[in-house]
């Protein structure tokens, strides 16, 4: 049964079946009846993680190192899926909103839609995945070779260097590429979702699971009587028994954590994983089930790995006992390869060889199909994901910028895009073949795969940091990625090339140019031997340290432009802005709808754009016949659609070329930000104005109170003399025979009171003139001594009445000032009257003085006139000294009560002195009298 023809026929039949499922899935999707929209299919699609590595490589690893040799690769993803809700869900949500099409698109979009980052991620991904690709090619070729040579189980000694297997591998590679092209590039999907592909992958995940379980069941219960029996028999063989426990040393310690970490990163950072988890996700809620379904799958697929490994070892060691070559070379610790006279047996392929040895043809074929299925699934999804990235992020940006291609003017570019993708797929698979051809035969499947894991782990800071830390900048990410990648190349790829013979081994041990510190396998003198670091742990350590350090360090010291900040907020705060970010648009104005449509149709095809625009029109109630100008929202929508086909960096460029006005340039953004700033300032000023108004209102109330006080004071003051005048006039009228003396006295009082009234009214009028600025000064040059004389004369009677002693201390020299004589006299009279008012009536003393003062401060010689009026009255307290000059303010003493007057006298006095460029103040202590000083500038 196991003839090459049949094997090939069955293999192609199986691929045909997968293709049919994919085709059906796509058709159903187009009809709107998606078959993949359920969590079980979603979880199964994640199982594309399990490749030939799982099917073959794990068995080999188990036979070399027991449980801890391979299980970390599956426990890591289990742990990571637990974090699926906080981390993966956020990534999925962000990607849906921003219509992310690949991991390169995701990272580039986060850091300001940077074309540089998109390109860097793509290159790292492609180069990093090449080893992984070669693993699959090796596995398929080797397993095909093995099963074709049935019943011969042993591979001829030099078989791996035979042209035959290399030819097989080449054909395998071409076939794989063709399958990938057929599955993934039939047409251009705006969202880069491939429902049919997901359906096919889910199917093949089931097949490989069933295959390995069938093999395992057969071995455990067919060849032996259950696990107990198997392990009991295994314990009789020392090389197997020692695998029951793990070797506890530094090497297994670090190796365990290293593999755990790498697998945790790989489960979502590998391009194919990002594709199935994020891009192909139909409903976020599927993640809830996938979070435990997928770990369950991983558990199930690993249950029988150890039985298969031990079963293989048991059988072949037995064979070894009767084989002369093998007996000689059988090591204490199994290294994975057994050499027989007839050829070699590689533990990696025990699943096949054991079945073949036991003549289980059907099962062996099933196992082969399972392994082939696992490998092809990986290649198809991985190459599709990578080709999308290469096309969108590497090729298209370059082509769009080449002016001689005039791509903007071509009417149909979808064809070009597809061609670019197909070529990319071919090239990537060929690269994988070349790596296999020259390097891979020296390594186990697991160790080659680890190289790829270490490569994609470089994306970890960019992605995880990007979705949680707004401060992560484009520059930081770029530095981190490039440095991490460089270290990866230097510490992993270089050594593998050296070990394969392409470079001198001296390089490894003694470093480049003999600088041992820079040796690729113990960089900077890291004591890898005692630490137990194997090559992978060493590489992961240095690359992650440098990557994270630069990512964080450079981010902290670099600034983000407006686009970066916007994207950072959109990503990190995605759950806050979910609804609004749909409308988030950076476009200032509009394009014509027709132009936009034509642009999109060139890349995505007429029918798809028709559907997309109809959808938009329905959601936003737009009639395309009436709306000729696309608003910012539609432009943004168009940009996102386009990004699905050609990546966000290129989409930005294309839409820019169509929109009438440029999208917001930096200064426009700054302008808008300025306006916002102005709004903030304006509202702050508004607040200040409100506070000012409140203060003004308070002052108004105070003034109102003062006005009322003034009115009551004035009316009181006016009424008193009026009352006296009236009373006395009445008496005089009513008593015609009043004696002459009294008559004379009364009339005198009337005159005096009238004068007082006049004075008061004049005061008030004066005050009103001052307040309204209506005073006219009549300035003349005068000798102030005359002013004093006149004022003393005016108040003479008052002073005599009060029996106050007035003393003059006037300088002998004249003091010439420029002023209004009457007003100055008014000042003196006011001061003297006040002094009289507050003096002790029996013992009052008033002193009036005048002096010319020369002030020699600084360079200037100031000459001014100083005049004072001193009394020995009740004095003015310190607090009141401030307010005596204010209008309506009167010092109310406890003993004497409210003084008479309107309270405006000093105010007028101060105003007059101020208007003469003078200064007036009071010097006083309670009960020790008061001295009013004023100065006036002298004139010559």
């Amino acid at each position, binding site marked *: 049964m196991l003839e090459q023809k049949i094997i090939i026929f069955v293999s192609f039949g199986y691929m045909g079946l997968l293709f049919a499922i994919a085709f059906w899935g796509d058709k159903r999707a187009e009809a709107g009846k998606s078959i993949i929209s359920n969590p079980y299919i979603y979880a199964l699609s994640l199982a594309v993680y399990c490749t030939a590595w799982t099917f073959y490589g794990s068995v080999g690893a188990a036979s070399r190192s027991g449980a801890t040799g391979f299980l970390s690769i599956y426990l890591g993803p289990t742990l990571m899926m637990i974090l699926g809700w*906080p981390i993966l869900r956020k990534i999925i949500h962000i990607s849906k909103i921003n219509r992310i099409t690949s991991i390169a698109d995701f990272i580039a979009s986060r850091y300001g839609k940077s074309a540089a980052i998109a390109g860097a991620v793509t290159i790292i991904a492609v180069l990093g995945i090449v080893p992984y690709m070669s693993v699959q090619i090796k596995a398929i070729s080797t397993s095909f070779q093995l099963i074709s040579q049935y019943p011969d189980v042993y591979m001829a000694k030099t078989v791996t260097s035979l042209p035959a297997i290399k030819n097989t591998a080449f054909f395998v590679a071409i076939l794989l590429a063709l399958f990938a092209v057929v599955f993934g590039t039939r047409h251009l999907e705006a969202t880069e979702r491939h429902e049919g592909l997901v359906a096919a992958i889910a199917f093949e995940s089931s097949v490989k699971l069933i295959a390995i379980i069938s093999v395992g069941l057969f071995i455990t219960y067919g060849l032996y009587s259950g696990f*107990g029996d198997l392990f009991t028999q295994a314990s009789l063989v020392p090389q197997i028994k020692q695998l029951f426990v793990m070797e506890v040393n530094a090497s297994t310690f670090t190796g365990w954590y290293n593999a755990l970490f790498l697998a945790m990163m790989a489960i979502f950072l590998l391009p194919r994983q990002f594709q199935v988890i994020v891009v192909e996700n139909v409903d976020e809620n599927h993640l809830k089930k996938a979070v435990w379904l997928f770990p369950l799958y991983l558990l199930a697929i690993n249950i029988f790995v150890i039985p298969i490994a031990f079963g293989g070892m048991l059988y072949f060691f037995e064979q070894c006992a009767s084989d002369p070559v093998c007996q000689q070379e059988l090591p204490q610790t199994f290294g994975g390869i057994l050499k027989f006279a007839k050829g070699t047996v590689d533990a990696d392929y025990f699943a096949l060889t054991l079945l073949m040895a036991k003549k289980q043809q059907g099962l062996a074929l099933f196992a082969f199909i399972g392994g082939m299925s696992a490998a092809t699934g990986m290649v198809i999804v991985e190459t599709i994901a990578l080709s999308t990235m290469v096309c969108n992020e590497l090729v298209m940006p370059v082509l769009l910028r080449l002016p001689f291609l005039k791509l903007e003017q071509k009417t149909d570019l979808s064809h070009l895009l597809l061609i670019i993708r197909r070529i990319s797929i071919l090239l990537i698979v060929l690269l994988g073949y070349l790596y296999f051809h020259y390097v891979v035969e020296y390594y186990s499947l697991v160790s080659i795969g680890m190289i790829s894991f270490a490569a994609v782990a470089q994306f970890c800071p960019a992605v995880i940091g990007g979705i949680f830390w707004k401060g992560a900048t484009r520059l930081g990410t770029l530095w981190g990625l490039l440095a991490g990648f460089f270290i990866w190349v230097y510490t992993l790829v270089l050594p593998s090339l050296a070990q394969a013979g392409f470079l001198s081994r001296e390089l490894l041990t003694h470093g480049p140019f003999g600088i041992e510190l820079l040796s690729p396998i113990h960089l900077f003198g890291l004591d890898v031997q005692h630490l137990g670091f194997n090559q992978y742990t060493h590489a992961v350590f240095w690359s992650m340290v440098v990557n994270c350090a630069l990512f964080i360090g450079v981010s902290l010291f670099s600034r983000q432009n407006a686009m970066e900040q916007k994207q950072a907020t959109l990503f990190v705060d995605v759950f806050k802005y979910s609804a609004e970010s749909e409308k988030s648009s950076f476009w200032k104005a509009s394009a014509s709808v027709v132009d936009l449509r034509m642009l999109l149709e060139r890349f995505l095809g007429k029918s798809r754009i028709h559907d997309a625009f109809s959808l938009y029109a329905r959601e936003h109630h737009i009639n395309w016949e009436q709306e000729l100008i696309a608003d910012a929202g539609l432009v943004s929508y168009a940009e996102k659609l386009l990004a699905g086909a050609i990546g966000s960096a290129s989409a930005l460029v294309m839409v820019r070329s169509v929109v009438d006005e440029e999208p917001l340039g930096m200064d426009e953004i700054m302008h808008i930000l300025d306006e916002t700033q102005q709004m903030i300032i304006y509202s702050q000023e508004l607040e200040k104005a409100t506070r000012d108004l409140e203060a003004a209102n308070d002052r108004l109330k105070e003034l109102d109170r003062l006005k009322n006080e003034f009115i009551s004071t004035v009316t009181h003051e006016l009424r008193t003399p009026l009352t006296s005048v009236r009373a006395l006039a009445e008496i005089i009228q009513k008593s015609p025979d009043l004696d002459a003396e009294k008559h004379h006295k009364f009339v005198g009082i009337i005159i005096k009171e009238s004068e007082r009234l006049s004075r008061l009214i004049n005061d008030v009028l004066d005050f009103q003139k001052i307040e309204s600025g209506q005073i006219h000064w009549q300035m003349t040059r005068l000798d102030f001594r005359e002013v004093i004389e006149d004022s003393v004369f005016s108040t003479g009677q008052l002073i005599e009445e009060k029996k106050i002693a007035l003393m003059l201390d006037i300088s002998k020299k004249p003091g010439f000032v420029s002023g209004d004589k009457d007003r100055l006299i008014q000042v003196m009279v006011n001061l003297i009257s006040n002094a009289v008012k507050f003096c002790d009536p029996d013992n009052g003393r008033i002193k009036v003085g005048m002096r010319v003062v020369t002030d020699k401060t600084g360079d200037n010689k100031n000459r001014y006139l100083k005049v004072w009026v001193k009394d020995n009255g009740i004095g003015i307290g310190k607090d009141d000294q401030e307010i005596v000059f204010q209008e309506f303010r009167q010092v109310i003493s406890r003993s004497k009560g409210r003084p008479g007057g309107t309270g405006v006298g000093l105010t007028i006095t101060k105003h007059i002195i101020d208007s003469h460029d003078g200064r007036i103040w009071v010097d006083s202590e309670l009960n020790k009298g008061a001295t009013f000083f004023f100065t006036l500038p002298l004139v010559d």
Partner: protein
Amino acid sequence: MLDNRSLTGRYFGLFLFGLFLFCYPVLTIFNLPISLFGIPLLFFYIFTAWSVLIVFIIFCGKIPDTIHSSEPDTAGNHLKQSG
């Protein structure tokens, strides 16, 4: 609200628990040359712990669901107002 934040917290806690279950020191505890039900202890432990962890993951996501579905609407609103 028994929603995202507490869910995230639970998953994170479970993640730490899983890290603990499979950390190297804990593995060495079971690294003994004895067999349980005929299976070497280390293998037995790893697969059992793995299964237990998966069961925990299932319940981690389930409990909020049952609380949401059994609470009548008014109580739900009340929770919202007081929260």
